[in-house]
């Protein structure tokens, strides 16, 4: 892959995409809008859904109950709690909030069987938005994304092209936040840019 060398913006910690994302900008009417959500907090929360103490504690710390419906996400303000397995959630929160959230969860869950793992750097988030966002995903993802089937609040763990991803839809545009492992992010970014070619791509900061 040809790397476009663009340094990390001053004052920020590097992300896997700093040297991959080209110049910010693109046509206003682009069908595809891409951006990276830098360093959002990510915690893997494990616990048993039939353990009332766990659910109560998690709900208290998060402000919202971890969703019990597979492949959905609960949101509270800018935080999303994504169901990833019957006893596993991925909590995505504003950059820098993960440590406080981790301690809040630890104290609320004390005495229950649970695990919290900070994976904030394990993956990054590519935000894909625009009128053609669904068509772009369909080029590399076998899941049915038709609005009758997959809408706001739903999430998926699947392959997008040749990268494992977790994504959730968060508006009707549609817009998706795609979580991809850090080392696969350059590949996926390039793939998304390529898949968006026919619709026009705009990159936002």
């Amino acid at each position: 892959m040809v790397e476009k060398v663009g340094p990390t913006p001053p004052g920020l910690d590097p992300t896997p995409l700093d040297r991959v994302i080209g110049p910010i900008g693109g046509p206003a009417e682009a069908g595809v809008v891409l951006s990276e959500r830098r360093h959002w907090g990510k915690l893997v929360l494990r616990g048993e859904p039939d353990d009332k103490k766990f659910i109560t504690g998690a709900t208290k710390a998060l402000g919202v109950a971890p969703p019990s419906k597979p492949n959905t996400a609960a949101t509270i303000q800018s935080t999303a709690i994504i169901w990833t397995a019957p006893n596993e959630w991925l909590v995505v929160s504003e950059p820098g909030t993960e440590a406080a959230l981790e301690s809040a969860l630890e104290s609320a869950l004390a005495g229950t069987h649970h695990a919290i793992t900070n994976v904030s750097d394990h993956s990054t988030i590519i935000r894909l938005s625009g009128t053609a966002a669904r068509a772009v995903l369909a080029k590399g993802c076998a899941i049915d994304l038709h609005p009758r089937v997959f809408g706001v609040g739903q999430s998926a763990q699947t392959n997008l092209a040749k990268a494992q991803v977790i994504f959730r839809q968060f508006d009707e545009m549609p817009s998706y936040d795609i979580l991809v492992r850090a080392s696969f992010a350059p590949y996926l970014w390039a793939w998304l840019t390529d898949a968006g070619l026919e619709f026009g791509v705009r990159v936002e900061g």
Partner: protein
Amino acid sequence: MSGQNHRLANSGSIDRSAPLKFQFDGQQYEGYKGDTLASALLANGVHLVGRSFKYHRPRGIMSAGSEEPNALIQLGDGNRTDPNLRATRIELRDGLVAASQNRWPCLKFDVGSVNNLLHRFFPAGFYYKTFMWPASWWLKYEHWIRRAAGLGKAPQGRDPDRYEKTHRHCDVLIVGGGPAGLAAALAAGRTGARVILVDEGTLLGGSLWSDLDCTIDGAPGLDWVRATVAELQAMPEVTLLIRTTATGYYDHNYLTLLERITDHLGTAPDHLPRQRLWKIRAKRVVLAAGAIERPLVFANNDRPGIMLASAARTYMNRFAVTPGRRVLVLTNNDDAYRTALAMHAQGVRIAGLVDLRAQPKGPLVAAAAAAGIAVHPGQAVVATRGALRVSSVEIMKLTADGAGVTGSARKIECDAVAMSGGWTPTVHMFSQSGGKLRWSEDVSAFVPDLSVQAETSVGSCNGAVSLVKCLKQGLKAGIEAARATGYKGRVTAAPNVGEPPQSDRRDLWVVPGKKPLGHAGKHFVDFQNDVTAADVHLAAREGYQSIEHLKRYTTMGMGTDQGKTSNINALAIMGEVLGANVPGADVSRVGHTTFRPPYTPATIGAYAGRNIGAFFDPVRTTAMDFWHREAGAKFEHVGQWMRAWYYPKPGESLRQAVDREVKAARDGVGILDATTLGKIDIQGPDAAEFLNRVYTNVWLKLAPGRARYGLMLKEDGMVMDDGVTARLSENRFHMTTTTGGAAGVLDWLEEWRQTEWPDLKVYITSVTEQWAVASICGPDCRTLLAELCPDIDLANDAFPFMSVREGTVAGIAARVFRISFTGELSFEINVPRRHGLALWQAMMEAGEKYDICPYGTEAMHVLRAEKGFIIVGQETDGTVTPSDLCMDWIVSKTKVDFVGKRALARRDIVSADRKRLVGLLTEDPNEVLPEGAQIVEAVQPEPPMAMIGHVTSSYYSPSCGRSIAMALVKGGPTRIGETLSIPLAGKTIRAVVTEPRFFDLDGERANG
């Protein structure tokens, strides 16, 4: 150039306001927008478009659709050239450059046509017979055959076009946009269901563009088509895909469609793919694929100008082109009368209408008589004339049984022949879906019988022969499919249809000639592969009676058309041959060959899509990758990871760079990017118990803050992975795995946890990419780390070997492991990935005064091999046990169980004869053995020799000042001191067996 002298003055659906220029075999022609290459050539009076595969006989356009066997065209040039395209499916565009194939030096005079004169030497099965005798001639034959029997030419270079793929789900997928398919789409679409309708052509409406004698609700059929298409286009959940072929039908209603997006444009915009492969998951499928007319098998039925009667009607009615000025019609059914009447109505002279039926009757026959067309009932065409185009035919009276002809021949001048042998339902998709076919006497062909997937066949692919049946079946299947997927809607009433009624057909699978079969002209069955009725008889005589054998023996049904026009004729002839010998054997017992995807030839590029170049496989890089690049590192692929291999200084070879890096790591301080190792966070009160079960050694008593090396086995006792795991706290462990094994180990652990030990309270989470890891080693590394790490006591007592501490390194919160893969004093510093580059840069800066040296994976391999540390995947290959590695010390004798324990007691696992790990020292210390080389006890003059093992790792060791190697050898350590041989091409290397350890044998260096 005579211009479009066969273009009719009016009619047709071409755009006469848009004339187009094109080139065929170097000559300029004109056509119109809406033409195909075939219709435009015919408009210019060009029938001769190709030479046949084997005999190089002149061939013309036979059909108007994808079944075309003859008119195969090479389109475009350079790397954009496409061979074997059907002229009947190429949309005409301005500037199109097309060429005929399989001829030299030119189409009208082809040297290869000598094959036609030598046909007695090329019987059916000729190709196979050349294998048999004389065997020594095969090499000569092959060269000649392959050169002689080519069709088009493949491009030489990289395909410059862009291809894409997409996934799509729908409630109802309808294959075929003819009357039945449109009716189904209408019925399903009106319920609001998600419908995709796919058609390979450019216009929806199918046969209604050709059969202008039909009315729907009192209006021309095309009015209904236009209204229906308009209604469908207005439905938001209906997708109409034209220029798109349903190529494959797989399990679970998964179908592939190939959409040709820019092929018809000439110059395509860069942002669009040339073609797109749609991968469709449909809840229900309606197959409305239509039917293909069969040629008649008569003597020399392959001259240019002889075409299917329905195709002739399509050229007349859709393209306003007449195939000839004096057209002879030959038929065994009523349908060809429609062609004759349509031509007659346009003023084309019908030279005669030869009907195989003795007493044809019905409204169409009456209409022909009323129009003054000369009908010859009970007659057959027994010969044709014309070198490059048919110029006359001879007809004779058929005997009552149709097996022969009587009386005298009569010659009829003509410049085209329209033939009709009945219709074959297009059951390809149905058969690919797994559905079972049955022989239908009604249509004398196979029709869908038992479905095995959620699918329905409608219209003429289901054996329907009338428009009204097609519409009714389509409407019914459409609403039923929509209802089956949960939609509600009313049944759409079938419209009133006006169409000519049709009566019986007389199947004469071989139309008799003047002499016995094979003696007066060729009765072609498969036009593309030059298979004749006589070939089918020959195959039967030689014992190739199974239809699959017939296909392979004669090549019948192979090639780019896969026998679309020929299969039924061939197997019906085989049925007749067998029926004469085997009582009860007929065509229904012969069966059919397998219908395989793709339905029509497809570009390989479409299947590759964008998975080419940089998208072929993701390249994974670490947080420090940028630094490695700036430092001029050479890289190697480790799985998908790109790892720094070595860092050459100007002029340095690999060996020189590695020697320097190894020396620095042993004598000063070296630094390695170890980020790619797999890392797994294991938490829970049963975490230690879990590790105790998945590793061979004991884990319960490991103290928090300490680490241990572990080997993981498969159930069969073979080593699958290894790594160091540290206990961070009572209930939390940090496991490391090999780089390549990371994903597999995580899956493995999850599988055991979920399926075998659900009672264990333990959670497993991959954190491989959470951490960037810089591993420093060498005598100075502690001093260096101390400068950057104020809050961890690095002394041996406070932070012993195989321990973990948390602290701050270069101002970054870090987990520091004191573990070693080099044998040196070593620390692995883990920081969150975002700080990886900063950590590395800080280490390099602070390390400058110690001459810190970055080392790559090659030096790492040498360092570990000097110490005799194994690499899973190098010393192991899935057949190696811990004992084979001489690592019995790591297998607990006291544990009740662990994964793989039971297998380790198997007789052949404990056999003394197994290959076990040893070291090898070559007699010449500068000789480095090739890895993978085979080891023998006794060298023979030539192979085979008894091989007793192989070299697993081999390097030049700068620390030992000589080469070292590790090997798996039968008997292993019992051979220490023996000298073994490694025979290579041109020389034999001798080496002494040693312990698999070469440096720092007492392990003192790890303490610094």
